[in-house]
Structures are given as C-alpha cells and as structure tokens.
C-alpha cells in the first residue's frame, strides 16, 4: 500500500489547500479584520477627503477609493502565520516526512489564500455598491476586478511566506506587513495623482501600486483601457516575480536547512 510515490502534485496541492481552508471558519479572527479594516479606512477617507469629489465635477471619490479598500482587504492576507505555527510545532516536519511534493506545501497555502481573497472582495464590493459605486465595464468588469484583486493578493503573499519560511518567527511575519504601508501610502491610493506634488508625486510614479490601483479604477470608472490594464498586469508580474522568488528560495532554504 505504501509503495506508491505519493499522491501527485495536484492532489498534494489540493490536500494542503483543503486543510488551510478548513481552518478559516475555525479561526475567524484571522480573516475578519481584513473586512473591518478596509471598511473603516474607506469610511474615514470618504469623510475626510470627500471635498475632492465636490471640487471636480462628475468625479466619484467613492469609486476612486474602492480599489484602495480592496487592496487593504487582500494585501497580506495569507496563511503565513499558520505556517509559522506548523514550523514551530513540528507539523511542518511531519508533512515533510511524507512523500508530499515540496512545492505543494507552499502552493497549497497560496491556493487557499486566493480563495479567501476572492471571498473577501465580496463584502468590500458590496459596501461600494451600497454607496452607489457602479462599474462602467459591467458584470465582466466586476469579475475582472475580482480576478485582478485576487492576483494582487496572491503576489503579495510571497513576502510573508518568505519571512515565515526563512525565520519561523511569528514576530517577523507580523513585522513584514510593515512593508505594505509605504507601498500604499506613497502611491495615489487616497488622493488622485494630479493632486500629488514634488517628491511624493515622483515616488508615486515609480511605485507599482499606483499602476495596480489605476487598473482597478479603470475597470470601475473609465472602461477597458488596454494600456492602463497592461501597466497593472506588468506591475503584478514584477512584484510577483520578486515575492515568489523570495518565497521559493525560502522554501528551498527551509527544506535544505538540515542538509
């Protein structure tokens, strides 16, 4: 019975993802902040900066800020803290003693992350719809928006996984979320780029998050703008290459730690 080389890559990945997803409803505190925090920022920014909407005729600040709220919801949403628990408790070693494909240990978690991220988009989108935000690109645009958001969330999961695998430290994983703040706030996340000046404007121009947000905004407000969407995809690919490389190197390092 034990002669086989294991279950195969796809089944391994599905098994790891299934376990990760089973844990979500049992640990709602790991997900609920990802809904409340963006809703809070969305409300606060609408209240504080709503004057912008009144200064530009026909401008919807609610639509402008919705991508920021989504980004807050999905960025950094990962099972990396749970991975740290597995490493510290020895369960990661137990998994490594099975014939599980090594990449599936990481990819399975990321698959679960994408499922959670998609689920998180829905309440945030519902808040936006409730406030009157409408997609000029229609239902297809909403789906593209969710897909884009899911890819965004996925590309950013590489960083906390890299830290989790490298350090096995919950404190280090928590600390790594700090990198998201400058990425967000040194972009046009909260204020349209034409209002940015000086060094801030320069940084926002080179910040990939600016282009990710622009792509999402295009889907809501301005339609299927190929150039803007491609710039967003390019930003995702760029960030993804960096984060996934770091995560894979960290996985390799963790697996070869004793070698």
């Amino acid at each position, binding site marked *: *019975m*034990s*002669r*086989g*080389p*294991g*279950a*195969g890559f796809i*089944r*391994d990945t599905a*098994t790891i993802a*299934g*376990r990760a997803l*089973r*844990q979500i409803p*049992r*640990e709602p505190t790991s997900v609920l902040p990802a809904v409340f925090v963006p809703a809070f920022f969305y409300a606060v920014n609408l209240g504080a900066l709503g004057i912008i909407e009144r200064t530009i005729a026909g401008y919807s600040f609610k639509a402008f800020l919705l991508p920021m709220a989504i980004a807050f919801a999905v960025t950094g949403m990962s099972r990396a803290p749970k991975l740290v628990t*597995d490493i510290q*408790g*020895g*369960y990661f*070693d*137990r*998994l*490594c*003693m*099975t*014939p*599980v494909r090594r990449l599936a240990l990481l990819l399975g978690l990321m698959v679960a992350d994408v499922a959670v991220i998609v689920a998180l988009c829905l309440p945030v989108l519902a808040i936006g719809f409730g406030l009157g935000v409408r997609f000029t690109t229609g239902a297809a645009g909403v789906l593209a928006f969710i897909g884009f958001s899911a890819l965004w969330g996925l590309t950013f999961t590489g960083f906390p996984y890299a830290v989790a695998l490298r350090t096995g430290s919950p404190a280090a994983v928590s600390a790594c979320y700090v990198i998201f703040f400058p990425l967000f706030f040194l972009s046009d996340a909260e204020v349209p780029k034409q209002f940015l000046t000086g060094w801030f404007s320069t940084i926002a121009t080179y910040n990939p998050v600016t282009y990710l947000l622009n792509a999402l905004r295009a889907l809501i407000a301005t339609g299927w703008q190929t150039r803007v969407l491609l710039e967003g995809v390019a930003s995702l690919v760029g960030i993804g290459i960096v984060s996934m490389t770091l995560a894979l190197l960290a996985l390799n390092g963790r697996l070869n730690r*004793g*070698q």
Partner: protein
Amino acid sequence: MQDDDGYPGSGSGPAVQVEGLVRHFGRTTALRGVDLQVKAGEMYGFLGPNGAGKSTLIRILCTLVHPSEGRAVVAGHDVVSEPQEVRARIGCALQEAALDDGQTGRELLALQGRLYGLRRREIRRRLDEVLDLVSIGDAIDRRIGTYSGGMKRRVDLAAALVHDPEVLFLDEPTTGLDPESRDRVWIEVTRLNRQLGKAIFLTTQYLEEADALADRVGIISQGRLVAEGTPRSLKRDVGRDVIEADVIGTDPTILERLTNLDGVDAASNEAGRLVVSTPDAAAALSPVAVELGHSGLSVKSLTIRTPSLDDVFRQMTGTPQEGPESLVGATR
C-alpha cells in the same frame, strides 16, 4: 511484497542500514561515524542521554536531515538519493507529537493518508484499523487541541501508521507521559512489532523501556555507538553484580574506602545511594556492610542485584545517575 527495485519489503534484508554516518552542525559534531543495522521485523532500541545524537540519527533516517558523511539506507532506499522512496515506506513519530491542534484527529489522519496517495476507501479502512490500534475512541472527531498529552502521542503514532509503513521510527515515544499512557504505548508498539511484523527503530532515554521492548539495543554516547547487542548479552558483558546501599549522612572518604576493599571494582554515589560494583556480590556484601558500619553513615537498606541495562549504560557512556532523571527511575 517485492517492489520495483527488487527490495523484498519486510520479508528480508535490513530495514535500516547505516554506515559511517557523520553529521556536523556548524562546529558541533552530533554523529561521529555510526554503523548499525536493523533487521526486518526487528525492534531496535537506540539508547543515549540527551544530546548524544539519537534525534539527529532518526532525523537523518526520516529524510529530514542529510548526513555530512556516510550512508543510510532505509527499506532498501538511500535516504539522500531516494528520499521519496524512503518517505513512502516509513512512518515517523518524532520526539514532540507533531500535530495540528486546529484539526480533528480524523481530519489529520485522513490528510496524512491522502498525502501518501491512499484513495478515499483505503483511508476509511486504514483509519478503522489504526484507530482500533491506538484506542482513541470518540475523541477522534474532536479537535486535537483538546487532547491530553497521551492522546496526542497516540494520534501521532496513528499518523505514523496510517499508510501501513514498512519501518517505523519512534523518537522517545513515551517521554513526558504518565505511567498509564506509557504502558498503553508500550502495548501498542509491542503489538505492531510482534503481530504486524513492523521493523521499529525506537530511541529512548528510558533504560527500562529499551529493556522491555527492544530485541536489540544500541547505546550512543557523544555521537558514537559504544555498545550494541541484546539487552541480555549487554548485561552479561558487564558481568558484575551490584550492591546498593541507601544511606543518610556524609562521609567524604567512603567511596575511596569501599573501592579499596578486596573484591570491589568500583563505588559511586548516585543521588544518595551508594552503588558498589563487584564480581561476586555475596562475597563482597559482608566487607561492604562492615565498612559502612564504620562510617558515619546511617544505612537504610542494603540490597544485591544482578546488572541492569542501567549499569551497561553507565559503563559504556560514563553517564552518572544524576544525569537524566529517567536513568534513576529505571533501576527502582
């Protein structure tokens, strides 16, 4: 049971073959050239104090750590060049029960089965079998976080067994368990070996455990295998009787005076108990008693016994009784 590589499974051939195994961790050397063999269907006890290299060896054999030098073959496959083949054939329960508190016992075991490629029906059947073996009862559907230490150990053991492995590695399986839980694990491990014919590599720091369970025992000290054989042969090789005296009080020269007696090989003080090694305890008892009578010590009891694995361990490793607590308890 023959597999693709011609390895005859648990029928013949060594379950574990280790040759010249060395493992460095930075400037520390955990293993210094270990050679050993575990036969198919054999229960091998690997004994040593904390830090002797037991866990390093078992982690190498379970493919978690590579050896720095030497070679290890498990179930006919090299742990470095064929780790997936090894993993598919072994079951491992490491020192700490490595479980996920958020899953139920059943979920964890089913997940384990899936990773070994078992189909749903096979998993159900194997779960029935291993759950019967480890006697976990209805608790299997509770989250593992609610389990006692003993229950976690048994689920850990079940996880090591769910895919019906050829070779089972148990790293200090009873450390930290209460006597009742320890007895249950002993019964389960014995049943696995005697009834199902599993080769079992068991590390322990409990001499009593190795004595009770193992067909053969290897003793490791400072990364070297210093003795190997059946518990009976090892005790016979020590070849000395022991006189033990429980005493109260202090006498700084008593050990020297006892050692100088005719027919006494050595004397040591182990946690308030004097242990005198002698080739003939009956002949040495009287002079030892007289010497103790002349000392300032109050003698509570004076007993003679044949050598235990404890004595073998002390002789081979030079580890005094005041080392691991378990080495004290094992002789009582």
